Structure formats: C-alpha cells, structure tokens
C-alpha cells in the first residue's frame, strides 16, 4: 500500500506493538494474560500484512488467532490446575537456555533482513489480490483442498461429539458423578 507519513507511522506503531506485546508474553505472570498478549502481538502482525497489501492474509490471521488464543487460554487453565488462571505463576522454565534459544532464533530470522540485497523493483499493487492469492494457492487442486477441508471439519465435529456429552462418569449436561471408592461399586458399573 503506497501512502505517505501516516502509513509509516502506523507501520511503526504496529511493529513496536508486536515486539512489546510479544516480549510481555514471557514477562507476565498469568496464562490468560500471556495468551491475550500473544493475540495482541499477532493482531499487530496482521495489521502489518494489511499495510503490505496482503489484506486477506492479514485479516484472516487476525480472525483465526482470536479463536485459537481463547481456546489456548482455556485449555492451559484446565491443564494447569490453576483456578481460573488467576494465581500468579512463571511463564518460562530453564531461564538461561530459554533466553539463549530466543536470542539465537531472533538473530537467525533477522539476519536476512540486513544481509540480503533486496531488489528495488516496486510492482504496481494488484487489482484482485485476494483472487490472485487463491489462484496461486489452490489453482487446479481446488477440489482436493475443499475435500480435505470438509474432511477436517467433519473430524472436528466428530471429536466434539465424542468429547461432549456421554463421558465415563455420566452425561455431561446432567452433572458428572465421581467414581466410587468401593471396588465392588466400581466393578458393577
């Protein structure tokens, strides 16, 4: 997207926002906050993608991440035995190794930006960027992708059906009962 100073300012706001919130993910003391910081970081990256002219990819990134981060927060809270995720806890383990790995990964990913000699041939913005992207990604294999998509969706629905109602300890919507402590009762179930 071409544009003057305003676009530059917005770009730097998004870039700084993505970095700061990305850093805060590891410095906060709550799983829910960490998930929401990560979401903010991804949303800022999505904003940069929109600025780059990849409207569809940027907006879909923002759209997908919202659902994923909420699920992640809920699942983390469920597994961590931390009531509602409100108790403070450390978000990192093995601090030194984690810091070293983080710095190394950032250096490897950021090095190409400085080392590579990028060509200076600005292309005109495409009229139908979304349609071109779809053609490029799917092309002739549209039917394959659609079949796989419907297959995945039915798998999801199947998993939800399996996980939802009838569990080992009774039907979920009637309240579950704890397993008995007596061996005989447990066997006669």
């Amino acid at each position: 997207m071409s544009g003057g100073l305003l676009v530059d300012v917005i770009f730097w706001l998004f870039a700084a926002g993505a970095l700061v919130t990305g850093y805060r993910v590891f410095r906060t003391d709550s799983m829910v906050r960490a998930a929401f910081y990560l979401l903010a970081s991804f949303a800022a990256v999505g904003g940069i993608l929109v600025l780059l002219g990849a409207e569809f990819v940027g907006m879909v990134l923002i759209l997908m991440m919202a659902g994923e981060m909420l699920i992640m927060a809920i699942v983390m809270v469920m597994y961590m035995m931390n009531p509602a995720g409100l108790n403070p806890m450390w978000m990192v383990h093995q601090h030194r190794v984690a810091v070293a790995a983080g710095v190394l990964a950032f250096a490897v990913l950021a090095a190409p930006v400085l080392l590579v000699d990028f060509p200076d041939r600005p292309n005109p913005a495409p009229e139908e960027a979304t349609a071109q992207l779809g053609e490029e990604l799917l092309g002739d294999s549209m039917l394959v992708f659609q079949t796989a998509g419907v297959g995945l969706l039915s798998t999801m629905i199947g998993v939800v059906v399996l996980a939802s109602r009838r569990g080992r300890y009774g039907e979920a919507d009637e309240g579950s009962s704890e397993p008995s402590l007596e061996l005989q009762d447990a066997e006669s179930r």
Partner: protein
Amino acid sequence: MDYASPPIALIAVGLAMAAGVYLIAVLDRSIAVLVGAGRWTWRGAIVGPIRSAALLLVQRRRTTERPDSPGWTLAPALLTGLAAVALAMVPIGPDMAAADPSTGFVVFSAAIVFVMIAVFLHGWSPNSALAMHGAYRFGAQALSFQIPFLLAMLATALPAESLSIVDIVDAQEPLWNVVRQPLGLPLYLVVGVAVSFWGPLNLPDASDLAGGTSVEDSGVARLLWKSARAAMLVAVAAMGAAGFLGGWWGPWLPGPVWMVIKAVALLTLLLVAGHLLPRVRIQRFVVIAWVILIPLALVNIFVSGALLL
C-alpha cells in the same frame, strides 16, 4: 468506488452507532411495555434511557479485590471498537459506504470473532466468581456459533463471487438472498443473537448469574458495556439487511432509506424475540449449534454453490 474521507466516515459511523443504541433502548422499553402489562409513556420510553444513562454517569465506581485493571478497562472499549468496525463494513447505498475493502466480509467476521475475546476479558478481569462463570459460558457459546455464523455469511458471498459487501448487495438486484438461500437469514439471526448475547442467548450476562460478566461493573464502565452490546446488535442487524434482505434495493424510495428500514425491521424482530422467547440453557445451545445449525449451514452453502454451477 471511492472511499469516504476518513473524518467523515468516522463521524458517520459514530453517529450511526449512537442513533442505533438509543433506538434500541427506546424500542426495547416500548416492546417490554407492549408485551407486558404496563402503559407506554413518553417519560418511560423516550426519556427513560437518557435518565438511566445519566444515572450511570454519576454513579460511584466500585472495584473488586485485585482485579486485572487494564483488562477490565479495555473490555468495554474493545467491544465498542469491534461494533464500530463491524458497522463500518455495512454500506447503506451503492456509493455510500464508510469503507468498502475488497475483503469486507473477512473484516466483519474478524470483528465478530473478536467479540469473544472482549467478553472473556470482561468476565475474567474483575477477579469475581460469577463474572468468571459468564466468561467461560461465552467461551462455549462463541466457539459453537462461530462456524454456523461464518458459513451462513459465506454463502452470501457465493452469488456475488466477491468478499466485498458492496458486491454482495449488488448481486442481489435480481433476487434477494433471503429468497435465494431460504436457510440463510434464519441461521444468521439465530447466531446473530448469540453474537451480541441478547435476549434468549444472553448467557454470559444472564440474570441467573446475577449479571454474569458485568456483575461487578458500575458507573461509566457499565454504561459503556451496555451500549457496546447494543451497538453490536445494530451492526448484526445492519449486516443482515445488507447480506440477506437486498440492502438498498427496493422500489420507490431511495436506497439508503430502504437500507435503514430493513435494518430497523430486523432490529425490531430481534428485540421482540428477546422479550417473547425464554432463555436457552448453554448446554442446549451448544448441542443445537453443533448438531442442527452447522449441518443446516453446510446444506445451505452446498445448495447455494450447486445452484451457481
């Protein structure tokens, strides 16, 4: 098509939101009186919402023990912003749109998906048990309505062969989507009520949780949350009018007038339903969404696609 200049677009969206929220307050009180046994008065229906708002503006702010203050402050503002984004995507005439990006449908959907972040944050941050219950409820509710909502909306993009909302409305000139896809509008309205957690699907803020996510709200924050929720309902109704009822297409009257009439009609329908239908339990809604709404939405999109081939 040219964009409206940003300041004008901002003011227009803000005015539309404010007018919509006030209209909802007036309609809701009037319908409550008509459905119930009370008597309609100017004082109650027209002035009443302003009095209530003024009362909340001067109310003393309460707080809880160790809340997540940034999140608690952010949540109502986030929901207001999402309602504004969603409403900005709705064109009211062929040349009258606050913004018409080529991916308008995706932007609208992203705003709808983010509602669950706003509601969850709103219920999680006060550090209060009933609010937390409301937040988890909405998590289950939102993850269930997401797929049928997106599928019902996506079917309207098929005849237009475009994700731009203006194109979607344009493609309805010969035949409105409500006729072309008879399943679409009912599906959209059911999940639309769930999106703006209104009436029978107001589960996160339900009275059986003493107000749910907003149980600890007071003063300006409560006013902002209430109006943001109403603004979301305005956006859902307006997009329903654009996506299924042919937007600005209609005889005699100019396009924007038709658009407003259709949006207000849908809004009235949703508000009446809110007063006549009992609240649905969250367990039942989740089952309905996965077992009935998603298959129906898939049938809708398959049939719409097959008719176009």
